[in-house]
Structure formats: C-alpha cells, structure tokens
C-alpha cells in the first residue's frame, strides 16, 4: 500500500512530463471551402494557397459546377460540422451567410465588402489595398513624387480621399483632388489637374470610370501631359499605366489560412476585415524613361512584371 502511494504520483509526474515534452504540433482541422467559381484564376489561387496553409480534412464546393441552395448547404454543414467556412467570391459568401452555422465564415475576393451582410462571426480580407499601402509603394518606386492628382466623385470617394490626403501628408506627399459630380465633368477636371501634378493616381470610382472611352480619355490626356498613371488593378494594363500596385491573390489565400487558424484556436482578431497583406507590382520601364521619372532602382527587386 505504501509502495502504491509513492509510485502513483511518480507515474503521474512521468506521464505529465512526457505529454508536455511532446513538441506542439499543428492540430488537424476540418474546414469547408465554397468558391463562387473555381475556374477563375484569382479564386483558384486564393483557394489553393488557403488549403496549402491548412492541415486537416476539407469539403470543397464549386458553385459554378455544383447546384447548391441554402437547404443543401445547411444539410452538408450539419453533417460535416466544419470548424471554419472559407468562401471565395461574393456569391459564395452570400450563400454561406444564409445558413445557420456555428463556424466562423471567412471571405476573400469580394468587391466592396461593405455591402455584405456581415455578422459577428463573419471575417474577411478586403479586396483593395489601403491608400497608405499604395502610397508607400508609389514612394518606394518614385521617391521624388511630391504631388499626386486624383479625380474622384464625392458620392463614392469623399471620405476615402480625405483619409488618403491625410496619410499622404505624413509621407510628405500632396494629394491634389478634383471632385466630379457626373461623368461629364471628367475631361475638364483632367485638363486643370494634370499640369499641376507629378503623377495621376486612378482609384476605383464608378463615376470616373463610367465607360471604356472614359478610361481611354484619362490615359490619353495623361500621356499628352507626360504624366505617369499609377493604378490599382491589372485590368488597366492594356492602357499602359506606368505602375500598377495590385492585390497579390496568393497572399490573400495564405492570409485567410492564418486568420482561420487563429479563429479555430479560439482567438478573435482585432479587425473583422483585414486589408490584403501582399501586393503585386507591374512597372513599365518605357514609361518611366519617356516621362523622365526618377526611379529608385533598388525597388526593381519588388517588381513582379517588368515591361519594356
């Protein structure tokens, strides 16, 4: 009896020590991925990198190939009980947000997430780089840029412009804005703005990009004034902007995976919606030379695509 009294605590100590000495391993998780359309390259990249960052069993649903309504999805969720639901694209998020799920829902590749019906358990990665990130990268490439012009509408970007101008001031950059009330005001605004600025920064604005010819007019006017165009999307590539600072899609997937790991680990992130953490850069060297811009050549290591 005395012998048992001594050995039992000893065995317990040995067992506890053995358990504690096993290195921490990433716990296997069950998760569900719903893609609006997995044939879209950007969505595919998000999903691939997300799955690469997760360990565990997954259920993957491609809404472009599978007929799935709220009832069918609810049944799947009840059956599989995933710990996290990852949605790629607006359609996937809107469907997932209609089911009753205990698991948090993470979204990526959504245009203007502010329109989404977000609840307490919805999280995501925004589809746009914050103004300050774009400005930092503009300055990284062109440290001598001091005056940047923007044409915007008060309806869509009043607040955004004010915030961007504040951030710019901190970096020693002056943002010169021209507010338009309708697409008809674009040409006149460009005519007064372009002679005053070192570069023109294009931001997403439905009134500014009202039609294809408006985009053509912007690029043509800037080129006439020898003003570099800096923009946010590779969709502008055919118009030959000098610099494109776009969201890096593979990073978005990895970022969603980190967010998922933290959520299933019981943490609540400080931000419900995070800005994207990675950027993808296209630089047109011919334009840099044509406009006589002073390029920080060490920034060339950051370029994904160099055009000549």
């Amino acid at each position, binding site marked *: 009896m005395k012998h048992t009294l001594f050995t039992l605590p000893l065995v317990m100590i040995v067992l506890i020590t053995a358990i504690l000495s096993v*290195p*921490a391993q990433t716990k296997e998780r069950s998760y569900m991925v719903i893609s609006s359309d997995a044939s879209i390259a950007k969505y595919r990249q998000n999903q691939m990198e997300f799955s690469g960052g997760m360990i565990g069993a997954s259920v993957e649903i491609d809404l472009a190939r599978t007929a799935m309504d709220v009832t069918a999805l609810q049944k799947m969720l009840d059956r599989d009980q995933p710990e996290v639901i990852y949605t790629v694209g607006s359609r996937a998020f809107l469907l997932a947000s209609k089911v009753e799920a205990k698991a948090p829902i993470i979204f990526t590749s959504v245009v203007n997430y502010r329109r989404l019906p977000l609840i307490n358990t919805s999280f995501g990665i925004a589809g746009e780089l*914050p103004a*300050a*990130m774009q400005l*930092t*990268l503009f*300055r*990284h490439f062109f440290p001598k840029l001091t005056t940047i012009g923007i044409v915007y509408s008060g309806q869509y970007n009043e607040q955004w412009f004010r915030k961007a101008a504040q951030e710019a001031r*901190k*970096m*020693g950059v002056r943002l010169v804005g021209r507010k338009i009330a309708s697409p008809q005001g674009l040409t006149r605004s460009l005519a007064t703005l372009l002679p005053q600025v070192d570069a023109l920064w294009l931001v997403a604005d439905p009134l500014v990009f009202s039609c294809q010819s408006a985009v053509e007019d912007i690029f043509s006017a800037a080129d006439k004034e020898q003003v570099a165009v800096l923009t946010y999307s590779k969709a502008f590539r055919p118009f030959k902007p000098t610099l494109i600072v776009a969201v*890096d899609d*593979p*990073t978005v997937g*990895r*970022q969603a995976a*980190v967010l998922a*790991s*933290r959520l299933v680990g019981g*943490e609540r992130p*400080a*931000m419900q919606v*995070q*800005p994207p*953490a*990675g*950027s*993808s850069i296209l630089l047109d*060297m011919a334009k840099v030379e044509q406009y006589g811009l002073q390029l920080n*050549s*060490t920034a*060339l*290591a*950051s*370029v*994904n*695509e*160099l055009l000549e």
Partner: protein
Amino acid sequence: MMLSRLIQKTVFILVVTTACLVVAATEVNKITVFYYSTETMVSNYVSLKREFDRSLASQGDFSFQPISHATTFEEVAKANPDALLLLTSWHLKKLQKEMDLFPILVGERQGQNSQSHILTTNKENQQGSDLKGVTIATAYSADFARTILLDALGRDQGFLVDSFHLLVVPKDLDALMSVRFGMAQAALSSESSFVSFQQMNPAQEGRLHVVGRGEQTLLPILASSRQILPSAQQEVVAILRHMADNVAGKHKLQMLGIDGWQSYALIGAGGER
C-alpha cells in the same frame, strides 16, 4: 552493287553518328543558371527569365531559369552538374551538406556583400516572450524564417518560435506594412528594407521597433558543383559579372536585389552564413 550499298550505309551511319556527337557536344556546352531564393516570394519569374536570357543567350548557348520551389531547385541542382546555381547563402550551406557546391561570386548591394535580418513589432519595449502566438509576416521561406527567428530570439526558444503564425508575403516591404496596418503583429525582414521603410514613414505612429536580430548572411551566391570551372561556365560567370558595368545590366541585377558582384574567393566568409 553490294559494295556501293555498303559504302552508302557506312556513310549514312557516320553522318548520323557525327550529328549525334555534335548535338551531344552542344548539349554539354549548354549552361543554365538556375535561380531560387529563400528570401523573397516575388513571383517575377517571367520577367527575370526574359531579362537574363537576353543577356546570356546572345553570347552563347546559355540560359537563365528561375524556379519557384525549393525542392524542385534542389532536384535540378543535383541532376545538372554543369549548371550554375544562384541561391541564398543560407540555402547554399544547407545544400552543401548533400552535394559538392563551390561558391564563385557573391552579390553586392551598395558596396555591401551581406545583410542583417531583424524582427520588428509596432510596440515599443517588447521582449521576445511577449510575442507568444503572434502572426509574423515575412517574405522568407518557412525554414529560413525559423533559422533567423531562433538566431534572433535564442536557440532555446523553439517552443516560442513554434507558437508563431507565419504569414508569407511577397516582399520585405509587404511584411513591414502588414505590421504597420495590423495584419500581423511582427515582421521578419532584412535590415536594409526596414531602414527604407522607416524613412518612407517618418510619422511616429507608423514606426516599427526592433525586438530581435539574426546573424548576418551573405547576399545571393553564384555556385557550381565543379571546383574547376569548364570554359563555358567561366563565360557565363564573366557575362553575369559584366552586367554590373552598364545601367541596363545593373537594372537586371537589381531585380535580384543586388547591384554587382564580388569574387567569393576574395571575401572573408568566416562567421557568415
């Protein structure tokens, strides 16, 4: 008739054999520079290939081949003894445990051939132990990041390092901005990137603070599995070296994060990785 056929056959075989030997000789002289970096995730492979092929292919049967995965690079390196390898100094050391690799050139940036790696946060006076479980943004490969984190925080801090969530981003600047804008709590980057980031963000609120520093590593290294370089490899080495002599060539090197080369034999590599 028979004799004529025999002569024809012999001539045909001779011609075919000679052609094969010429092709084989050409293949032997074809030199490819394979490139992989553990310190950046910028997917610039198409531009790098186009730019370096322009410089190399115009002067011989030489080519440049960036590779996006470490394992593929390592397999290619082992299977191609005539290739030249452009890789990080940490990766070179790792590969040297498995195969003979001899450094030829080391990259140079603004006169320096090495760089420091640092761990930064957005809070002042933080200790390594305050970072348990945080998200660290970095452009480094997971293996390399782990090595640097152990250097920076202490070799006995394996558990702390295992608790981190690693957010892999394309480049140093993305890692630093991730901390500045709240997507990560810490960043692992080169010190030179950190310095330029601080210069771009003079406002106090955006400033980051160094909490740990890893050992210095040499900039990218050009290496060969041959101790004595065959003439074709020497030609490629010369082409790469001379790229630093003109603006266009220098721009191409800058896409790799360097602006020139130093001879490895002339540097003191002691203590550097």
